């Protein structure tokens, strides 16, 4: 109905100030919607990257092959089997699984590891450390070790070790020194300190050490296989689904990071709910604003509606004129709000450069299209009541008044 569109447009342009005010009101609602989307989305991104970013998204750990406890049907413990030193569980087929896992869509990096505990000694000082053996070249696959280096080099050649800042300070270590690392299996090695990292996480900086996979093989007397495979995904939200795939593909017990992160997920969920709540209110405000403005316009234009009806305009035509006005207001306000929202979000740092102390707004999560679409739908719904009121105008009383 081109002609109804013309009438609707004219009605809107006839009262420029009023229309501008109305469109601005809608734009403010859309702006709030977009701002909330970017904030809630950015906040979730920020929290996740801070808590999960350096973690493995999916972890496959060797299963302990023997039951440690033998329990009778009545529930009594019959045998307690102590884990023997030589019975460290291994993923012996790791070499065959790796290419398979790497080919799973969404997998960004795979890091086979040998992990264990040990004592790091320099001179008279000794510290208990956890040892992670990783493949040279994959040092930064899970934890962004390269990004956290403060001294030396991240590269783990054979005979090299990389430790955290706190540990280095505790033992007064400096690059190039030779250290003695004795594993829990009793194997000792002399290693050269190649680099020092600082993640900001005390548990990591104070106790984690990294060596090459081959060094770890020697330390933990594990000529083949690994104890752990860590997997990093492009999208950490895909962890559950991808873990299921890997499990189906390899039969290994792939555990997504979300297992055991229920509290974090609940918190993020509650945060998202708050966002929906506020966004819904922004939309309701838009709907009420548009509905009341159009209802007023319907009332003011009663005589004209009466004339149009007398001239042969059907009820459908009148409905269309007013619904079109609503849709145009929604579209204009939606676009204006989206543009304003985008411009307002531009000065915020990008998602990769969130800093503590500033709002972690994510400009890419503004839901601009959704905001405009919902606003147009809301404005159309809002105009239905006034449009129906307009269509019911009795030409006789409208013209007679």
């Amino acid at each position, binding site marked *: 109905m081109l002609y109804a569109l013309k009438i609707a447009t004219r009605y809107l342009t006839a009262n420029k100030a009023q229309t501008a005010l109305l469109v601005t009101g809608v734009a403010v609602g859309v702006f709030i919607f977009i701002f909330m989307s970017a904030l809630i989305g950015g906040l979730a991104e920020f929290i996740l990257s801070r808590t999960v970013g350096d973690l493995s998204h999916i972890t496959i750990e060797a299963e302990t092959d023997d039951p440690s406890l033998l329990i009778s049907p009545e529930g009594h413990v019959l045998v307690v089997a102590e884990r023997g030193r030589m019975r460290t569980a291994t993923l012996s087929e790791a070499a065959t699984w790796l290419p398979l896992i790497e080919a799973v869509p969404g997998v960004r990096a795979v890091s086979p590891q040998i992990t264990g505990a040990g004592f790091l000694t320099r001179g008279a000082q000794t510290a208990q450390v956890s040892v992670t053996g990783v493949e040279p070249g994959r040092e930064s696959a899970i934890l962004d070790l390269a990004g956290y280096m403060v001294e030396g080099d991240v590269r783990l050649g054979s005979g090299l070790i990389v430790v955290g800042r706190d540990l280095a300070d505790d033992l007064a270590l400096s690059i190039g020194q030779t250290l003695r690392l004795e594993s829990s299996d009793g194997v000792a090695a002399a290693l050269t300190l190649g680099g020092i990292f600082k993640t900001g996480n005390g548990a990591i900086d104070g106790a984690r050490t990294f060596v090459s996979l081959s060094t770890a093989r020697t330390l933990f007397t594990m000529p083949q296989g690994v104890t752990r495979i860590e997997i990093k995904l492009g999208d950490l939200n895909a962890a559950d689904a991808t873990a299921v795939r890997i499990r189906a593909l390899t039969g290994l017990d792939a555990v997504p990071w979300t297992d055991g992160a229920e509290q974090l997920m609940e918190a993020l969920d509650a945060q998202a709910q708050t966002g929906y709540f506020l966004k819904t209110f922004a939309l309701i405000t838009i709907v009420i604003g548009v509905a009341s403005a159009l209802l007023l316009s319907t009332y003011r234009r009663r005589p*004209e509606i009466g*004339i*149009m009806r007398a*001239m*042969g305009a*059907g009820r459908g035509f009148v409905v269309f004129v007013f619904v079109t006005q609503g849709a145009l207001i929604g579209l204009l306000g939606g676009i204006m709000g989206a543009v304003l929202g985008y411009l307002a979000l531009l000065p915020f740092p990008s998602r990769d450069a969130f800093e503590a102390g500033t709002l972690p707004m994510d400009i890419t999560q503004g839901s601009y299209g959704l905001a405009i679409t919902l606003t147009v739908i809301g404005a159309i719904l809002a105009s239905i009541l006034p449009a129906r009121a307009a269509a019911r105008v009795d030409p*006789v009383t409208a*013209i007679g008044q």
Partner: protein
Amino acid sequence: MTALLEVSDLIKTYGTGEAATRVLRGLSLRLEAGEMAALLGPSGSGKSTLLTILGTLMKPTSGSYVMLGQDMIAADDRALTGFRNAHIGFVFQFHNLLPDFTALENVVFPTAVRDGRETPAARARGRDLLTRMGLAERIDFPTANLSGGQKQRVAVARALMNSPELVLADEPTGNLDRASAMQVMDLIGQINREEGTTFMISTHDEKIAAVCRRQIVVGDGVVTG
């Protein structure tokens, strides 16, 4: 002459119960095609009520109404809307034009709302009609800037847009000075003679009524003369 329309035993009661006012009390009337009739009667006698019923904008409480062979009482809103658009033109005393539109846009409205858009042909006819009404200089004027007499002439042009058989005018000259009123009436008379369009014009003004060939007088809810 053939009957353009015929109403018989029209009764119109406004309101119900105690407040009920019976305005038309069995009014019957026949209009021939090509007539130019004045509708006279004291204030409150029901002239506007009758014109509204003839214009299919309101249904009588009872009675029959046939126009162009069609039963106007049985027809539904949709059918009447189309019928009005094609066959009946209106000129009212107040609130005649759409204020946010130009003279030409107002005139072409009946055709545009039928076609779904303003066609070049409709615009050409609109310009012709406005020129005939002596408004060649005012074609693209916003109607808000027109004088009272000019507005009524635009309204007459619009009433004629779809070449209706019948034009109903309720005190079209009611708030015009004598000169403007006579100018409007001359134009209506000219259209009536040249095109055979039937006019029914309610008025309190004897001089206006004198321009019309037939005078219908309403009193006590019936035609008295």
